[in-house]
């Protein structure tokens, strides 16, 4: 066993335990909003955190598994939207890789891009599997846009993007602020972070 292999093994397990806590951060994020009553979801802190620290593949896994576990413990419908959570993590990792998580204005733009990309994935799922609704309050927005003469597809797209854009910008900015200031002891070994901290 060479040193490189041992170090790689260590890195892998570090990312693994990171993803596990990130999944739980995603799940309890909603609990924070129960206390604060803000019109946002706050359920992707963990996914974006992993995307920044460990890159697109780990970030995608964190998102995907969050929704699968959500499906396991509360609502099986969440599992159908797992691909949406996945692209949040992948997009974050890639945006960070291309240096779009260095300055606060870049982070805001990245939040908007993440919301746009997830909309592209969410809309076909919501339209084809669920007839455009989810059983949540945002269904009123879908009904409203339909009344204005929009097709179901564009009604859902407008609703999904509109309800996600503030959430993803806020989440991205907050996670970035935290990650940027973390002490070395905690970030040691997360190689993807170099693209964010420069």
């Amino acid at each position, binding site marked *: 066993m060479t040193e490189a292999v041992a170090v790689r093994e260590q890195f892998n397990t570090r990312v693994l335990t990171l993803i*596990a806590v990130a999944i739980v951060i995603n799940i309890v994020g909603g609990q924070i909003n129960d206390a604060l009553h803000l019109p946002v979801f706050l359920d992707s802190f963990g996914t974006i955190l992993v995307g920044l620290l460990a890159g697109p593949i780990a970030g995608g896994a964190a998102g995907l598994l969050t929704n699968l576990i959500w499906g396991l413990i509360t609502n099986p419908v969440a599992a159908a939207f797992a691909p949406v959570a996945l692209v949040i993590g992948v997009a974050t990792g890639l945006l960070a890789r291309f240096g779009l998580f260095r300055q606060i204005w870049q982070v805001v733009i990245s939040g908007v891009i993440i919301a746009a990309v997830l909309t592209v994935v969410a809309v076909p799922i919501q339209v084809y599997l669920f007839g455009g609704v989810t059983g949540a309050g945002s269904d009123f927005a*879908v*009904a409203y846009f339909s009344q204005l003469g929009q097709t179901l597809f564009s009604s859902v797209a407008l609703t999904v993007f509109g309800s996600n854009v503030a959430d993803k910008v806020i989440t991205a900015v907050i996670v970035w602020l935290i990650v940027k200031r973390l002490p070395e002891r*905690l970030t040691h070994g997360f190689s993807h972070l170099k693209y964010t901290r420069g």
Partner: protein
Amino acid sequence: MSVTLELNPRTKLAALVWAASFVLLLPPLASWGFAGLVLAVVWGISPQLGPRLLRRVLEVTLPFSAAVLLVQTIFLRHPDAEPLYGPLNFSRIGFERGLSLSGRVTSVVVLSLATLLSTPPASLLRALDAAGWPPALAYLIASPLLILESFKARVQAIRHAQQTRGWRLGGSPLKRLRGVFLLISPLITTALIEADQRSHVLAQRGFRAFPRRTTLLPVPDAAWQHWVRLALVSLSFVQLGVVSWIWLQSKI
């Protein structure tokens, strides 16, 4: 408890995949019947599980079914839409589509919840270990389930710690936004400390030293279950193929 609830968890998962793909082939009303049938069968096998299953299914599917029926029937402008009241209209196509979608979703929800409620996560993960699945995957399912409660308690503890040094819960949207930071920041940093420690603990206990692991408490399995799983999964592929073909035909 009956034999169906003692099946190897992997066999139950295979049955779930088969049944979920079967639902896609059913006509709208039949999918509702199928959901009812599965519920009745589970209730018959386990009178304790039945009511719990029904309650969970209703919690999940009622809001969705109501929403999809309303939006499809009244709000969307299908070709056969007839004016109803003001800007609202009634569409039979929309009604049927709503009924079909909600029937399918309800069936899949009933199947998933029946599988989950009858399968403790611990036994599912033991079955995956026994079958030689990658330890990393089982870890990523097990660990969040195990640490969830301690994280929920920590969110409370963080909130109380900030309030007892004068932070007011509520206030203007901007203040509440700052509150998000006050609450999420300790949660993330404590989680990183915990994850860092745990990664070392896992490594020193030989986690992933080999590409598979064994299990102290074996889960019963049998050769016939292996063949049943194979048959169910193969049949699922066939069913999904048929569904895709029908869908493509309808688009052309």
